[in-house]
């Protein structure tokens, strides 16, 4: 039941407990209890909307940044990662295997803002030894959602 509720909500966070209860053949109370539990244990973290900002004319630049750092005694990469995660411009932070340590996505208004952020805020953090910045040219899919999908129903009307 829990997985079914989570799967439905992952696809459409606007489904109400009443709708979910009907769809899964259970009661509204039970659905609410599961959602409360998921929120409490942190399996549900947030209910967000995936927006294609390009459609709104809002200017923004997204950059993927590879970061190398020196791990700290006892705390490894946590300290640097947490520090970086606190910047509102930083949309995600991952610890990676392979040729670099942290991967982050950054969203700023202009390319110059990205450059300033990297130079003044990231590179100056203690332990950061190098950064490599890649600009996103176009989004095709984000958060499981395909951008600019062809949503016309092309199915033939059959019996």
């Amino acid at each position, binding site marked *: 039941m829990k997985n079914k509720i989570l799967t439905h909500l992952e696809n459409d966070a606007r489904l109400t407990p009443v709708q979910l209860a009907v*769809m899964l053949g259970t009661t509204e109370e039970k659905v609410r209890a599961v959602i409360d539990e998921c929120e409490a244990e942190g399996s549900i973290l947030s209910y967000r909307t995936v927006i294609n900002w390009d459609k709104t004319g809002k200017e923004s630049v997204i950059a993927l940044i590879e970061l190398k750092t020196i791990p700290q005694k006892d705390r490894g990469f946590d300290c640097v990662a947490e520090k970086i995660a606190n910047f509102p411009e930083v949309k995600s932070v991952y610890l990676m295997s392979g040729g670099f340590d942290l991967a982050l996505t950054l969203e700023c208004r202009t390319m110059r803002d990205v450059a300033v952020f990297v130079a003044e805020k990231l590179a100056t953090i203690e332990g950061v030894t190098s950064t490599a910045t890649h600009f996103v040219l176009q989004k095709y899919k984000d958060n499981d959602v395909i951008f600019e999908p062809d949503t016309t*129903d092309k199915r033939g009307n059959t019996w």
Partner: protein
Amino acid sequence: MFDYKETLSDRIVNIKPSGIRKFFDILDEMKDVVSLTVGQPDFVTPWHIREAGIKSLEQGRTYYTSNNGIMEMREEIAKYQSRRFGLEYSPKNEIIVTVGGSEAIDMAIRTLTNAGDEIIVPEPCFVCYSPLVTLAGGVPVPICLKKENSFKLTAKELKEAITPKTKALVLPFPNNPTGACMNKRDLEQIAEVIRETNIVVISDEIYAELTYDEPHTSIATLEGMRERTIIINGFSKAYAMTGWRLGYTLAPQLFTAQMAKVHQFGIMCAPTTSQFAAVSALKNGDGDIEYMKGEYDSRRRYIINRLKEIGIDCFMPEGAFYVFPDISHYGMTSEKFCERLLMEKGAAIVPGTAFGVCGEGFVRISYAYSIRQIDKALTLLDEFVKSL
């Protein structure tokens, strides 16, 4: 002057065009209609299946296959049917791979029908059976299934329809358009009647994977029934593969050998690319079926609940992806109801009469659509019935 009329076969000309076609033609012309009309899945064929089809093209597998289908596919069909439904058929001489379930139905009917033979067709049902019986020179004998029997075929109804000319019974369950299913106990009653006769059962099990309350039972699993049953199945509904046009028959060798003639002379073989894709479906697709079935089940519950809120009485469908609510108390024909809903509110559903005269008083609503789309259409339906 060249007279077209004289050139045409009476048998063809006398077949009425499907009533639903007219409705669909109007629909196709209209813009921004919120439609719940189509009879096919809204999922795309799972990627591993598409990939297997693409791979076969890359490898240059563009030839005809053996008439009855590639052996690997027939072997996988046999394994799948055994695993899912407990049916045992020999890939060598009891399975024919066809161009969709439709060709399989046509092939079975043509193989059984002599001029004047009667074939019993329980209605409401998928539109093709009766015209195909007529084309084969037979006489379709409809049985009007009743809502009070949950649209199941009863032994009494069957007995009353049987005459010395009865050749076969079409058993279309899980049913399009009603969503009715026949469970083992229901089938046992039918089998009891059939065993006393020489009637063949054409069991159309295309929706076998889409049952929500209990797993599908094939009548061929009942005692003494395998020898007199031709099972129709296919990939369209279970794997969302409608466009691949792939179905099959399972039948005793004596039927299969005869049906193979219709297939090999009329069709040659099913599309090769589709057959290779289907091998992947059969081998690795059980999880895809479960996933899609879960989605349909959620929508089924949702749509039934909405209809209840609107105040429209509906039989709880146990299979397929349709609901078949009763709209008779609104005082107009099914066709009028659907036409007015379309014209006044821009929502489209299908009149029950498209599936036989006894569909009068009902409409078919497909839930092979997203919850959002279902919600939108039912809101319009709600507004419409409130305006009456």
